[in-house]
């Protein structure tokens, strides 16, 4: 790893990270609930627009960390305040900033109690999430990583459903126990390297045994966060109880932390161990795809259905990452972004249903689409996107991941079986999504009475439209997104010393 280039001295990232905290402080003094909502919405929207600067100024040619900021923090321990992003984190930061205003919008009517505390929690979440994706110092990273837990657990535990305390506790204990392993790994690495700087850790030559221990510690921590099969049980519980905004944040951003961890730490810091464990992780990913799909098929609670489909989708992401080639990893990052867009949207859709019917039971929602044509249109597009329909965002991500899987299978023929095992998984995605769509949009012969239900209002259309645009924008014109990733992923692969010769027969002029 080349040292972070210090030539760009701006405080863009610091502003992005800490301004939500300031906004939360302001929010603490606002009395009117309406004003609170407006303030949070205005602020998060402004930040979303502001973060576009990153996109505009990002240099796609270099793999170095950009917008780097380094200053002293705790010099006695060698801990620095150091920030920077590459192509991978850029997309994730943008995903975070763009999902936030939508979270505020979809909570507009859903949250009626303790509005102030809710908005403050959201804003603190934003600080922590952005921080995780930008931190270049391991202690700083860990601080943000842990800081996320508290507001999230509060979101579930205070504004959640009937079993909210149980779900919040489960979420907290689960992720916390993962974090412990992460902390151990960090300390071990610090002892070897003599610094907490993440880029420094990447350049280091560790012994194979050490790498294996560190990898395993990372793995437990990140696999819980992804969540990978069989560490996933906290997810359905958390989703079912969380308020809409909580589910959206959880699905869109929090689930990406695990895969981001794999990309940022596991692969470059422990390349040897990565090679050793790759086949196992790949098979776990295949299992997640099948298992998530099958379990989703059996659900009657809409949120659980979407939650289990998340397990399957994230299986694609880990599959792509551990295919360890350009297609796989670029595809995996796209899957992460797409999952954020699509699943986030699906949770908003479920929230819209819940606000109207106060149930998420599939049978109770049958035939809503007849009363709500606009809603049916949105639900249809997002369902298609979720089943990776060509022309939508997910297709391109999953297509690249599968290409990556094939590249891997080329050198490891045994994995061809794994690729073939994915087939039913993809068919399952069509099965559970169409089942849901058909039920919700059309229903059967005798549907519950929905005559009092109103179609989407302007606010709800405004919430969903940006996601709809993204579905098609990424799906039809993925080039800008892949270009941003190109250099960073190439560099990452060099670090894992495993650049597969990409299709030696290449290709078109």
């Amino acid at each position, binding site marked *: 790893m080349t040292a972070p280039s210090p030539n760009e001295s701006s405080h863009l990232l610091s502003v992005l990270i800490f301004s939500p905290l300031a906004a939360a402080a302001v929010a603490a003094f606002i009395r009117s609930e309406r004003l609170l909502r407006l303030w949070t919405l205005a602020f998060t929207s402004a930040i979303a627009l502001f973060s576009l600067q990153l996109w505009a100024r990002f240099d796609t040619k270099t793999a170095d960390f950009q917008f780097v900021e380094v200053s002293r923090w705790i010099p006695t321990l060698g801990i620095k305040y150091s920030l920077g992003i590459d192509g991978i984190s850029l997309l994730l930061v943008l995903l975070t900033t763009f999902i936030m205003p939508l979270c505020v919008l979809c909570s507009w009517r859903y949250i009626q109690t303790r509005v102030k505390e809710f908005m403050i929690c959201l804003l603190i979440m934003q600080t922590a999430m952005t921080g995780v994706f930008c931190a270049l110092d391991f202690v700083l990273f860990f601080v943000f990583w842990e800081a996320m837990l508290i507001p999230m657990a509060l979101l579930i535990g205070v504004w959640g459903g009937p079993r909210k305390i149980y779900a919040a506790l*489960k979420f907290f204990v689960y992720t916390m126990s993962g974090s412990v392993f992460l902390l151990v790994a960090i300390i071990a690495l610090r002892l070897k390297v003599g610094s907490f700087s993440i880029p420094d850790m990447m350049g280091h030559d560790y012994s194979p045994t050490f790498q294996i221990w560190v990898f395993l510690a990372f793995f437990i921590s990140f696999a819980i966060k992804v969540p990978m099969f*069989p560490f*996933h*049980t906290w997810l*359905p519980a958390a989703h079912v109880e969380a308020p809409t905004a909580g589910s959206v944040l959880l699905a869109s951003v929090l689930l990406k932390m695990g895969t981001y961890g794999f990309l940022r730490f596991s692969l470059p810091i422990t390349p040897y161990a990565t090679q050793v464990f790759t086949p196992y992780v790949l098979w776990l990913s295949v299992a997640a795809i099948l*298992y998530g799909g*099958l*379990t989703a*098929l*059996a*659900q009657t609670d809409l949120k659980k259905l979407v939650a289990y489909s998340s397990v399957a989708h994230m299986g694609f992401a880990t599959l792509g990452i551990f295919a360890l080639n*350009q*297609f796989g990893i*670029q595809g995996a990052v796209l899957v992460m972004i797409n999952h954020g867009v699509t699943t986030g949207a699906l949770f908003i859709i479920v929230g819209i249903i819940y606000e109207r019917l106060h149930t998420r039971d599939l049978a109770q929602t049958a035939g809503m689409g007849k009363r709500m044509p606009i809603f049916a249109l949105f639900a249809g597009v997002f369902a*298609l996107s979720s089943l990776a*329909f*060509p*022309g939508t965002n997910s*297709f*391109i991500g999953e*297509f*690249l991941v*599968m*290409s990556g899987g*094939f*590249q891997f*299978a*080329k050198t490891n023929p045994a994995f061809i079986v794994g*690729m*073939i095992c994915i*087939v*039913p998984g*993809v*068919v*399952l995605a*069509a*099965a559970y999504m*169409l*089942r849901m769509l*058909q039920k919700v*949009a*059309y229903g*059967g*012969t005798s549907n519950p009475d929905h005559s009092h239900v109103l179609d989407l209002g302007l606010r709800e259309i405004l919430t969903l439209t940006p996601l709809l645009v993204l579905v098609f924008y990424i799906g039809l*014109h*993925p*080039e800008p997104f*892949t*270009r941003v990733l*190109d250099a960073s992923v*190439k560099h990452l692969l060099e670090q894992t010393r495993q650049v597969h010769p*990409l*299709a*030696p*027969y*290449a*290709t*078109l002029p």
Partner: protein
Amino acid sequence: MNPDFIPWIILFLPLLAAVVIALFTQHDRKLSAGLSVGAVVAGFVLSLVFIKLNGWAPAHEVSVAWLTIGDLQADFGLHFDPLSLLMMLIVTGVASAIHIYSWGYMSEDRSLPRYFACLSLFTFSMLGIVLANNFLQLFIFWELVGVSSYLLIGFWFERPAAADAGKKAFITNRLGDFGFLLGILTAWAWFGSLNFAEVNKGVADWKGEHWLLTVAGLLIFCGAMGKSAQFPLHVWLPDAMEGPTPVSALIHAATMVAAGVYMLCRVFFIFTPDALTVIAWIGGFTALLSAVIAVQQDDIKRILAYSTLSQLGYMVMAVGLHGPTQAMFHLTTHAFFKALLFLGAGSVILAVHHEQDIWKMGGLRTKMPVTFWTFMVGTLALAGVPPFSGFYSKDGILAQAAQHSLPLFVVGAVVAALTTFYMFRLVFVAFLGKSRSEAAGHAQESPPVMVWPLRILAFFSVVGGLIGIEELYGTQLATEHTEHAVSFGQQLIGPFIHAPLAVGVGLLAVVIGYAAAYALYAKAAKDPLPEKLGALSRAMRNRFYFDELYQATVIRFHDFLAAAADWFDRCVIAGVGVRGTHGTTELAGRALRLLQTGNLQTYAFIFALGVALVLYMVLS
């Protein structure tokens, strides 16, 4: 001026129409229909203009870069050669006729704008398949065709049967499509490109394992099996008849289901002889199976649907017998006469107030003369009576079979006899004799907007075999010898000279089929076959229980798996795994609590015990 921009317009006009209808003109029925019809008719005219300016050859393509990953680039491009240009003409032409017909057929439906939006979306996607110059693009449009078909099959979604049929079609197709996707990925991984021309080059220079190519070819064939409804994925097509009849004509007879065959011909270079043998047999088996089933169906649309399946099997068999030219030729003539038959059936169905059972029709010949005569033309063409178009195309396939595989030749001949039989059964029962129901007695001829498309398609069903279509395909696809520049007269009698055996057997099959149909059905009041055939007839009526079989095995099995996974998740992982850990921790806590008695003597005692233990270990 370079005319290459014209096909882009042809491709995107229907999409534009679909979007405009969906977003802006939902409330205006006339305008919506007009936009949709206008887009496709303009596409047809522009196709003619383009072919006039460009000529059929030379083959070339235009493309723009779409996606770049590492060193690889995927394009969005259009490919022009006789195959794609002729297909473009057929799609826009047949689609024009059917769009116009729909205007009449659907005029009373309250969701007419939605119907036309979907139809335009379909036209766009189908043209995308036809013009695609690479696998990825082909696949994208392939799926888009699938979704427009889903929307149109389930158009009357208030009927559960329609909604279920749509879902079934989509999921069955997806099963095939995933094999297709794996095939595409294999091709990409091994040849490093998605472009047809480049892959073709790669295959030609292929030095690796032979079986790999076979596998890749068969995986790609999976896609065609789904879309062209080949055994064992054939179950969705008959159910798809739940859609409006013009949709059955356009999508489930003339164009979309033929896309599988078109795709096989487009990538014919990738198939090894072994793969072709498999393809031929699957095609042959599908043709036979569905022809047998068609014999005992009573629903006019289902008869035609099984006939379509059977004819698709014929085409696939032709591809497998090294005859892409013949397959495409039959695809073309079939597009004319099967669209004609479906539209004729639609005309009948409307006239008898949405009755589809042929045993409740009868005597329609005099009441609906145009419908009857055009339907007769379609029947004769499908049966393969000279000089109707079907004769020439079917004969080409039989000749090909005679040359390559005797068993498949026999299959082909039997299917030809069955085809004639079930079609004349339909004609005798539905059109001739006396009215069998009140509705049939009051039937009236359909309005001109529906009748004219029938006339036009009938015209092409007659002459389709003689206007040089086969030769045009041959210039590009022929794997064996070709003869160029044949005069009209030579074309007319061509088959009798080249392949007398095939012609002889083919005609004999027609005669046998007709004679049997005449004997059994010309005067029948009810179907005599169930009594004569007993259990076999029941099996045929029940489509050989394939749906029940799938219901009992595949669907039951995956429902079971889903329930098992759910149970596993709740009980084993969340229960034993997570609760177990939690329980152990809690138990340990409780056990340790017992030690904390708060009794000072106990603590002192334990403390002393510890000191003793340490002393013992240090000293010994």
